[in-house]
């Protein structure tokens, strides 16, 4: 099968400023990739991930059906090649689809097949993994073939208007909670109740369903429902080494000396009282 790499459909976001927060320690030399199949008329795929120039696959995801998206896999930063083969095809067979992606530190990517079987392509989306504090973020991706153009609303608010195949919105802040998402194409529409908790990031995907349109919800990233403030007071100092100048020895000498002196004084007083010592 002819190899097609739909470079035109690779909207690798150049918005480096997307990441508001510092990547975690683990993220400083790793990124994340997840894979999926958004081509309704394509077969199931086995998806292979190769580090650039290495013929041995690092990761293989099998039986990826229409609408499936894997969870994220952490990968070291660098250049990768993604190959999609029809399920069951040999690992050495020429791929049905392939694409390459440069994984940069602390960034996450969604790599999916998309489009009609006659014009299959690979779409690479750069995902966001930092939220606006206390809010939810949501992005809409239009992958329906049956509906040429789709408009998506959240209640009365438009999230994305007239999205064409492969088109997507940026990440939009919404208030946390339950949302009623409505997608309307040329002839079909659908409504989905979606839970968007605080400090979570989601992608909503418009896909074809027999006789209609559907919305799949992907969780891109999640944080705590309430972001804590700063450091934690998790120690009382019982094992901290004593501070300079806090050596207890002089005080212990004082204690012992005082005890001896007091005892001697008391004994002498008793003897004076009992007359065993003659007072001049």
């Amino acid at each position: 099968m002819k190899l097609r790499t739909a470079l035109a459909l690779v909207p690798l976001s150049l918005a480096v400023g997307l990441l508001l927060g510092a990547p975690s320690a683990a993220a400083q030399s790793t990124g994340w990739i997840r894979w999926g199949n958004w081509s309704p008329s394509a077969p199931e795929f086995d998806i292979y991930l190769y580090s650039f120039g290495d013929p041995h696959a690092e990761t293989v995801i099998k039986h990826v059906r229409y609408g499936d998206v894997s969870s994220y896999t952490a990968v070291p930063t660098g250049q990768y090649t993604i190959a999609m083969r029809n399920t069951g095809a040999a690992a050495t067979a020429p791929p049905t689809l392939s694409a390459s992606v440069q994984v940069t530190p602390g960034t996450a990517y969604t790599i999916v097949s998309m489009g009609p079987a006659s014009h299959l392509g690979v779409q690479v989306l750069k995902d966001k993994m930092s939220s606006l504090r206390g809010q939810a973020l949501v992005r809409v991706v239009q992958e329906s073939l049956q509906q040429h153009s789709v408009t998506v609303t959240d209640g009365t608010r438009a999230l994305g208007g007239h999205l064409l195949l492969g088109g997507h919105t940026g990440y939009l802040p919404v208030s946390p909670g339950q949302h009623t998402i409505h997608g309307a194409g040329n002839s079909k529409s659908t409504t989905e109740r979606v839970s968007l908790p605080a400090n979570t990031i989601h992608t909503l995907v418009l896909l074809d369903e027999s006789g209609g349109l559907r919305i799949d919800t992907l969780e891109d990233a999640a944080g705590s429902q309430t972001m804590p403030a700063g450091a934690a007071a998790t120690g009382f100092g019982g094992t901290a080494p004593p501070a300079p100048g806090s050596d207890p020895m002089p005080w212990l000498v004082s204690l012992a000396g005082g005890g001896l002196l007091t005892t001697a004084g008391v004994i002498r007083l008793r003897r004076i009282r009992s007359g065993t010592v003659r007072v001049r």
Partner: protein
Amino acid sequence: MIGRLASRPAAIAAVATGITAIAVGAAGVILGGGILRGGVATPPPAVGPGRPADIPVPTVTDLASPSAARAAPLPVALRIPAIGVNTRLVDLGLTPAGTIEVPADPAVAGWYTRSPRPGAIGSSIILGHVDSLYGSAVFYRLSHLHPGARVYIRRADRSLAVFRVDAVRMYDKSRFPTTAVYGPTPDAELRLVTCGGSFAQTLKSYLSNIVVYATAVS
């Protein structure tokens, strides 16, 4: 000396002086070097620079088979064999100042209930004390963990969430990287937090936090 003590006033003076010395000594032991620690202590064992754990190759996932349950159960216990931690987990909320509560019992660790459950997408957060007033506490050896060590969390349905340590870091509390430690992540991760660094007598507090970063492996 005996001659002096033989006189009654001298003996009384000796007793008074002795009692004063005892009082001074006792106060010195309690306030200076004994029960309460002071000043700037020497740092605890150095924390090595974190490095990403190797990615196992190849990982084969079959999406046709049912994946693990999406809704992770509540965590109830924590075990870290590499440093001998085996503790139940208590629930932790937020203080009025907005920081995470700390466990009342230094011998147990706690899970921040508004963080993702262990095994779910996001950073699940667990806090434990490094020491009590009198000795070591549940996370005394946390800074000794190395990348690759396993962390096991038992959940309410008796299932295990297993994590692999990615990095161990020490941060000055005044420059705590809140977003990196507590912020969103695209996969299931874990943060273990305790105190470290110097202990400030005036603040009755350690000046740094130790943070262990770990990622789910099952």
